[in-house]
């Protein structure tokens, strides 16, 4: 159910290692729970993000959620198209990436869950 090539945080972000960079988004579980997403706030290119600290915000009509960085590092790319069409997070959560980070401490990736562990995690109703 959850793509095997991705790693997952307990706060429902996914991380995709692409060589020396990490692409970041939110999982289908998070997008479904928020339901219709109306707005996304993302950091600027060049900003520093910290492991498991908020880097942005996802907004639906009834709720707002912080999104947490699955790795520390510098933001090198941001998906501007997402700000225009935040609803793609609902229709294509793994294609609708949010940011690309140059990780400062790649060892942090080991703290993330694999697809199986994440499936078990959300199965617990978190």
């Amino acid at each position: 159910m959850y793509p095997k090539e991705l790693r997952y945080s307990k706060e429902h972000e996914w991380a995709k290692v692409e060589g020396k960079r990490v692409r970041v988004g939110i999982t289908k579980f998070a997008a479904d729970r928020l339901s219709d997403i109306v707005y996304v706030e993302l950091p600027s290119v060049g900003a520093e993000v910290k492991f498991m600290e908020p880097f942005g915000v996802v907004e639906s009509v009834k709720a707002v959620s912080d999104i947490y960085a699955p790795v520390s590092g510098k933001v090198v790319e941001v998906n501007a198209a997402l700000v225009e069409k935040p609803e793609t997070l609902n229709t294509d959560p793994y294609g609708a990436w949010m940011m690309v980070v140059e990780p400062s401490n790649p060892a942090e990736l080991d703290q993330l869950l694999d697809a199986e562990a994440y499936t078990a995690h959300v199965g617990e109703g978190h």
Partner: protein
Amino acid sequence: MSTPTAPTPLTRQRPVPVIFERGAPGRIGYSLPASDVPEVPLDSVIPAAHRRAHPAALPEVSELDVVRHYTILSHRNFSIDEGFYPLGSCTMKYNPKINEDVARQAGFARLHPYAPEDLVQGALEMVWELERAMAEITGMDRVTFQPAAGAHGELTSLLMIGRYYAEKRERRSTVIVPDSAHGTNPASAAFAGYRVVEVKSDHRGNMDLDALKAVLNQDVAALMFTNPNTLGLFEEHILEVARAVHNVGAQLYLDGANFNAILGITRPGDQGFDIMHLNLHKTFATPHGGGGPGAGAVAVRSHLTPFLPVPTVERDGQRFTFDYERPKTIGKMRAFYGNFGNLVRGYAYVRSMGASGLREASEMAVLNANYLLARLREHFDVAYDRVCKHEFVLSGRRQRDRNHVTTRDMAKRVLDYGFHAPTIYFPLIVEEAIMIEPTETESLQTLDAFVDALVAVAREAETDPELVRTAPHDTPVTRLDEVTAARKPDLRWRPERSGVPSRA
């Protein structure tokens, strides 16, 4: 058993043009005299560089256009004067007409805030008397009416608490709230610069005393408490809570939104509270006005009086004065003195009710709530099986699980029966929460009709769930596209607009 009412008048159903779409260029709706001062070139009055090039694009309508427009709009509004609002946490009691007559007289409504004190002795006396009454009702020492609303009162209180500890040179950076707290509590605490810690409620709906004690320490500035709490339940361990909070030198704050349950029965000052706010637009019957204005009062014990906002109102024999000489004041939360127009209404209410009337109001508010709870408990899940106070919380869990009908759906269907919906999805700790507060001003007949409507909706959830899921049907508009409203906000009229926005 009542069924949805007859079709509503046409004026309710047809969309109403915005006022900018009415009228015609050059049409006027006002009457003002011609200038009676000598005519001089406008440039010498105000230099051209400072003047608008074009008048503001406001409507060009006749007086009749204005009258029809707002009259029709008023027909598309639910109000207490029309029907019952069972809104938990809001205390939608009847707003007495006589209080309007009292407040609108020129002797109050036409007073300039900077008029000399000699010219406003009647106003100052009223405020002083209202303070004395509120102090007595709450069991506190002094009261300020400067806050414009309850949340404003919360912020005022937290700032006073902050000053109190600053004076004592104690660093305290945490505020504790229950997990059932109204959203304004953590918002106010954050706005006041505090870190917010949540403590869970126990199985009886009280704050979990052990969980509370685990987080109480010297860094805690205050516990923000609601009592009765947002579940409609009296916090049974209040005296222990007060002791525990005071043991670590912290302040006990009361969110007084639920005061309608306890008038003349118990007083926060006697329960151990140090500071609290009241909502005059809840307990003291001032009108809600479609969202405001309210009036907040903050009542304090004497150790906090030095920090009250300025000015306070003082009495010296037969004379009333403003006191600005308060060196430890937090300052001001707004210009001037408070929502005076609503203080007049609140004063009139207190004088109308008297001590026995206020007590009777609370008793009936609590009885009405328990009556509704008794009649509804077989049809909905009950969150906590206890005698409630002025409000109670049900859960729509049963209907959601069995029939895929949510609390939102049922609330919308209630509108078709001619009632306002109860409060929904609050407090957050109850799934599919439905919070009901009847107040004392509703009759048994109204309560029974409301029960009938809710029972009918619960039944419809089983027999015709789609009807409920697509409700409301008999209102001026059906469910609105809130997603598009948030994705592509349309927050003002633009003249070049034509037709109707399309759904995304």
